[in-house]
């Protein structure tokens, strides 16, 4: 078996896929969250500022989803095939709202009529919230497991994906992104909008804390297979501890008006949540509720070692480049939003 740094290629690519999806959650998380908060802003200028705060970066953020999908397809084709065909309807709805979100950002500013702008505002806000929720629902189903037969085919009903646990994960994801987005917006705004956002940061942080607490109780009480890894490896207990401290640090930094550090803390919270997911799932990628033998693991669903080797090379060259120009773009647009003639 080929290894690098003591890890086999399958595990390494699992980490890469996890890393890309974490990057996606941190980056697109804030612009989805900002979108979900959009209708709470009442004035036209406030809405424009909020939209232009994510204007230059949202498209680049969304590309991380495309890369993540590609990374999953390339490294674990069987997982890609099983999950996407299992959740046919939710993914089709997801695509539709993704399209609506992109065009509402693009189209909103093209007409002056109040009804036109109001229509795209509603569309933008609802689609952002729906995307966040559906991402969580899919994650919830992966955590819970889905009925997969021996050929990796889904055998559940059409509405299987809307089970209580997955809905709970969906709500938690939405609340996490709303908090994350509010902190991002507070960094980009001034004056009265800024003041309003500081209150929204507080409210969304409370919303997230309640959601994550309930989700944790649910998981601990009813989903035993999601607690094994940390139960059996005591040292891993530091991960949930670190997460709780990261959440606490958000409120601490907000109180000190150090919003940049608050944003870093909420990014760390996002990462740690996904690390818990990865630790508890590994080496499974999709759990079958029919039989553990039908589980798709990083080993039985991966591409060949040759292919994984190529992918790791591509990632080793590509990821630093992506990070470099992502940094460049964020640095170019740092600071508070100023509207000009090219703005949305």
């Amino acid at each position, binding site marked *: 078996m080929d290894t690098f740094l003591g890890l086999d290629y399958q595990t390494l690519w699992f980490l890469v896929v996890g890393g890309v999806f974490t990057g996606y959650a941190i980056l697109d998380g804030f612009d989805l969250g900002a979108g979900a908060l959009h209708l709470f802003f009442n004035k036209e200028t406030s809405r424009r500022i909020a939209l232009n705060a994510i204007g*230059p*970066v949202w*498209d*680049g953020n*969304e*590309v991380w*989803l*495309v*890369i993540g*999908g*590609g*990374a999953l*397809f*390339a*490294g*674990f*084709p*069987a997982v*890609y*095939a*099983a*999950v*996407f*065909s299992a959740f*046919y*309807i939710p*993914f*089709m709805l997801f*695509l539709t709202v*993704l*399209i609506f979100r*992109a*065009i509402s*950002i*693009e*189209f909103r500013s*093209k*007409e002056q009529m109040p009804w036109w702008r109001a229509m795209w505002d509603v569309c933008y806000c609802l689609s952002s919230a729906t995307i966040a929720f559906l991402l969580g629902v899919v994650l919830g189903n992966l955590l819970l497991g889905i009925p997969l037969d021996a*050929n*990796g085919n889904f*055998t559940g009903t059409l509405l299987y994906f809307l089970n209580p646990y997955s809905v709970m994960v969906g709500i938690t994801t939405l609340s996490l992104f709303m908090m994350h987005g509010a902190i991002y917006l507070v960094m980009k705004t001034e004056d009265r909008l800024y003041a309003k956002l500081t209150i929204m940061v507080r409210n969304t942080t409370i919303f997230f804390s309640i959601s994550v607490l309930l989700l944790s109780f649910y998981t601990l009480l009813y989903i035993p297979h999601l607690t094994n890894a940390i139960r059996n490896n005591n040292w891993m207990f530091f991960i949930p501890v670190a997460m709780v401290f990261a959440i606490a640090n958000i409120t601490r930094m907000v109180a000190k008006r150090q919003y940049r550090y608050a944003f870093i803390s909420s990014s760390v919270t996002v990462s740690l949540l996904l690390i818990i997911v990865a630790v508890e799932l590994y080496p499974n990628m999709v759990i079958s509720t029919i039989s553990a033998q039908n589980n798709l693991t990083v080993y039985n669903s991966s*591409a*060949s070692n*040759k*292919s994984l080797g*190529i*992918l790791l090379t*591509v*990632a080793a060259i*590509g990821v630093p*480049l*992506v990070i470099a*120009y*992502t940094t460049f*773009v964020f640095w*170019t*647009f740092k600071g508070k939003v100023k509207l000009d*003639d*090219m*703005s949305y």
Partner: protein
Amino acid sequence: MDVEILSRIQFAFTISFHYIYPPLSIGLGLVMVAMEGLYLKTGNKLYENMTKFYTRIFALIFGIGVATGIVMEFEFGTNWATYSKYVGDVFGSALAAEGIFAFALESGFLGVLLFGWNKVSPKVHFFSTLMVTLGSMFSAIWIVVANSWQQTPTGYRIEGQGLNARAIITDFWAMVFNPSSVERIIHVWIGAFIAGAFLVLSISAYYILRKKYLEFAFSSFKIALIIATISSLAQLVAGHASADVVAEYQPTKLAALEGHFEKDAPADMYLFGFIDTKEGKTIGLKVPGGLSFLTHGDFSAPVKGLNNFKKEDRPGALNIVFQSYHIMISIGMFMIALTVFACWLWYKNTLFEKRWLMNVFMWSVLLPQIANQAGWFAAETGRQPWVVYKLLRTSQALSQAVTANQVIFSLILFTVVYVLLFALFIYLLNKKIKHGPTNGEDIDHSPQLKSMANEIGYSSTH
């Protein structure tokens, strides 16, 4: 209808709709690089204005392109799960490379291109425009590599059988440089350049006809005309090279393209015609032995005909293959004639005097769009019944867990959304064009040009 035909219709519909936009982004990107390059070189504000104006149009096109592009990546998994498992090992690395090298580059710098005018220096801005264009060209590389591998697979071995069979990569570079990839990438790129250049030609011709923003329109027309002429001529060479690859590696497709049935007989080339699938013959205006000549340099050289192959190994929709191929070629030839004629008039200094010609150019924006779509229809329907040529049949590539009703639902959903999207796109594009280049006081009502225009016979239509 069964899942197979519904899934095929859905994929064809979503990718055809998507493919309206990427060629425009690539081609318009190239025109914008030329314009902004001229601005950097000359310092002339006109070119800056031009770049800014087309940037707004670019943003609209790019936005819809991205939104409709993710759909296909998802459809591989949702509708074509068996295909995804089969090709994932090979195809995946091309798709991952596309995401990481191309999409991230273009969408990262897009922010600077659209919103960075006052944030970065002109040079850095030009660099961003260049990167967005390069990024969109790179993404064409990787997606065409992946598609070319489906046409002419190399660098793999097959493991497993039946539903569990899959292609395993053995040589990355053999996969990337499979026999058809280089020719097809160039063919696709040039098709995109033509699409972008004709959009600029069309908008400029519209302004010239309406006697608006004349200096702006004349200048952007000329820049686009240069790109359109060179690209149209180059496409003749690139297209022929692409057809040569088909002749060598995909004989069933070649036979379908020209409606050639007879076993190992000299093959004709049709200017237009119709395939009588029942009788197994083609009726139309032809150059006898033309296909033999183009592929072998000899009018009587034998070419494998459709009758050389079993019926189940031939493309099913022969007329779609034949007609779309011939539509593409006819349009290509017409665009060469049109652009070369326009260049000749430019040389004679009478380019903008022909009102009818400006009318032709205004509507010609549709030509490269139709040709690009037709070319892909010929390429993809000509590959049938295979999704991976001679390895995996389209009928065996479907998702096992998806039912016809689910696909009907999503197909209706996409149809409704895309019709709405297209209507909005045309409405907003039209509005942006009518609005014209902003903050262009210095180029707007230039009295000298107005009187010039009157002299050469333009009458104000509105």
